[in-house]
C-alpha cells in the first residue's frame, strides 16, 4: 500500500545534540496515528518536522511522493495545545480566514457572492464542531474546549491532507476531554481525515489511534546522553479497535516502565 506521508531516514540535530535519529515512517491515508513517548523524547520535534516548522538535518519527507518544502503549507493543518486561534477575530472570522487567504491574495477579504459562499462553508464547519451558536464570539469569551473546537474547525475548513495535533486536549479537564475525543473520532470518520496526534496520555493514544508510535531512545550513553537521538521504538497497529486495546495498553505500560 502506498503511503500518504513517508519519512526516510530523518535525523534532527541541534548542534551536537541529536534529538531524532533514523526515523523511517510511512503513514497511510485514513490512519489515526498517536505518537507517545517520555517528555523531551522528541515527539513534538517529529511533529514540527512533519509540519514543516523545522527542517530535518538529514533525510527526506515525502507527501504523496513529493518532497516537502521546509515550510508550513495548507496541505498540513495543525492544532496546538494553546494559542492556535487568532484573538482579534470572531469564531466565524477565524474560520473564514483560511478561505480568504486562498482566494484573495492581496486584500485577504472576500466580497459579494464569494464572501457569502465562504461564510456558508465556515458556518457549516463550525456547526460540525458544535460551535454553531458562537459564530460571532471572540476566542477570549470561549472556554478552553470551545477554543480547541474552533482551532479544529479553522484547520479542517482548508481540507488538509494531514491533520497534525500537538497535545490538543492536554489543557482540558477530563469531562471536556471525553467530549473532544468523541468529536475528533466523528470528524475523522466523516471527513476521511488522516491524523497524526502527539499526546502524553496513553489511554487517549490507544482509544483514539488506529496505530500507536512510541518515540524513545534506543541507545543510551551515560557519559554523553545527548549524542543518541530518539526514534520509533514501538509501532503498534490497532486494526481491530475493540479487544486488543486494553491488552496492548497494559503491554506498552509495562514496556515503557522497563525501558525507563
Amino acid at each position, binding site marked *: 500500500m502506498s503511503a500518504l506521508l513517508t519519512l526516510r531516514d530523518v535525523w534532527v540535530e541541534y548542534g551536537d545534540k541529536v534529538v531524532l535519529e533514523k526515523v523511517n515512517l510511512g503513514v497511510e491515508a485514513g490512519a489515526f496515528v498517536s505518537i507517545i513517548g517520555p517528555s523531551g523524547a522528541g515527539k513534538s520535534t517529529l511533529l514540527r518536522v512533519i509540519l514543516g516548522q523545522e527542517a530535518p538535518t538529514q533525510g527526506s519527507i515525502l507527501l504523496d511522493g513529493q518532497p516537502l518544502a521546509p515550510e508550513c503549507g*495548507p496541505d498540513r493543518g495543525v492544532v496546538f495545545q494553546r494559542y492556535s486561534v487568532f*484573538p482579534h477575530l470572531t469564531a466565524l472570522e477565524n474560520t473564514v480566514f483560511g478561505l480568504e487567504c486562498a482566494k484573495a491574495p492581496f486584500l485577504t477579504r472576500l466580497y459579494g457572492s464569494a464572501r457569502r459562499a465562504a461564510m456558508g462553508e465556515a458556518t457549516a464547519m463550525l456547526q460540525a464542531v458544535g460551535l454553531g451558536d458562537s459564530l460571532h464570539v471572540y476566542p477570549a469569551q470561549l472556554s478552553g474546549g470551545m477554543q480547541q473546537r474552533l482551532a479544529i474547525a479553522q484547520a479542517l475548513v482548508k481540507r488538509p491532507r494531514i491533520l497534525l495535533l500537538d497535545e490538543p486536549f492536554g489543557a482540558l479537564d477530563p469531562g471536556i476531554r471525553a467530549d473532544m475525543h468523541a468529536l475528533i473520532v466523528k470528524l475523522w470518520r466523516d471527513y476521511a481525515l488522516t491524523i497524526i496526534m502527539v499526546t502524553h496520555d496513553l489511554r487517549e493514544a490507544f482509544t483514539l489511534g488506529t496505530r500507536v508510535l512510541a518515540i524513545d531512545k534506543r541507545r543510551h550513553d551515560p557519559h554523553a546522553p545527548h549524542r543518541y537521538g530518539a526514534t520509533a521504538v514501538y509501532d503498534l497497529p490497532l486494526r481491530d479497535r475493540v479487544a486488543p486495546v486494553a491488552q496492548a495498553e497494559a503491554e506498552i505500560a509495562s514496556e515503557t516502565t522497563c525501558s525507563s
Partner: protein
Amino acid sequence: MRWVNRQIDRKDRLLLGAAPILLLVLVYLVLAAQRHAANPFDKILPLPDGMAKAMAALLFEPDQLSGNFVFWADTLASLERLGLGLGIATLMALLVGLVVGLLPPVRATFGPLITGIAVIPPIALLPILFIALGLGETSKVALIVIGIAPVMIRDIAAHVAALPREQIIKAQTLGASSWQILIRVALPQAMPRLLHAIRLSLGPAWVFLISAEAIAADVGLGYRIFLVRRYLSMDVIIPYVAWIALLAIAMDVALSTLSRKAFPWAHGAGH
C-alpha cells in the same frame, strides 16, 4: 479589613481623588493671599482674579501687532506641531515596527540602526535639526518625531515579535503569505498596542514640543510661557500650564476610549 481588600466605589473614588487636588489649590490660595496681604502688587503667586484678567486679554482681545487672538493662535500652533509629530511618528511606528517585528531579515538589517537612534538624546540633535532644517516648523516637528518614534517603533516591533509562534505557524497552515500574515494577523493585533504607545509618548512629545518652542519660535504655548517669564508673568504661565495639562489629559482619555471601543477583544472581554 486589610487595606489591600478595601474597594472604593465610584462616588467615593471621585471624592477621594478630588481631595488632594483641592487641598493643593487651597494651600496655593492661602499662600497667594498672604503674599498679596503683604504686597498688593506681588507677581510670584497671582490670585485667581489676576490670572483671569491677564488671560482675558489673551483670550478675547486681538494682539495689537499681529491681530491674532494670542491664546488661540498659540494653542493652534502647538497642537498642529504636536499632531504632525505624533502622526508621523505613529505612522512610522506602525510601518517600520510591523516589518521589523515580523520579518527576520528586516529585523537583522534595521534593528541595530533603530536601537542606535533610540539611545541618542533627542535634544542633543536639536542644533543639527535647526542647522539642517532651519528654524521653522519642520525642525520642531522633526524633533518630536525623532524623540518619540524610535521608542514607539521598538515597542511595536517587540510586541509583534512576541506574538505566539503558534499563531504565525497556524496562519501559514491556513495558506497565508507573509503579506497576509502582516495585514491580517500582525497589524490588527498591533493596533491596541499602538494606541497605548501613543498614550505613553504623549508626555515626551509635549516635552520636545515645549523645548523646541522655547528655543526658537514666534508662536506656541511653549514660546509664550518662556516669553512672559521675562516679565515674571506668573498670571499667564500658570493658566497656560493648566491648559497644557488639560489638553494632555483630554488626548489620553480620548485614546484610551478609542482603544476600548475599537478593539474590545484586547480589553479582556470574557475571562
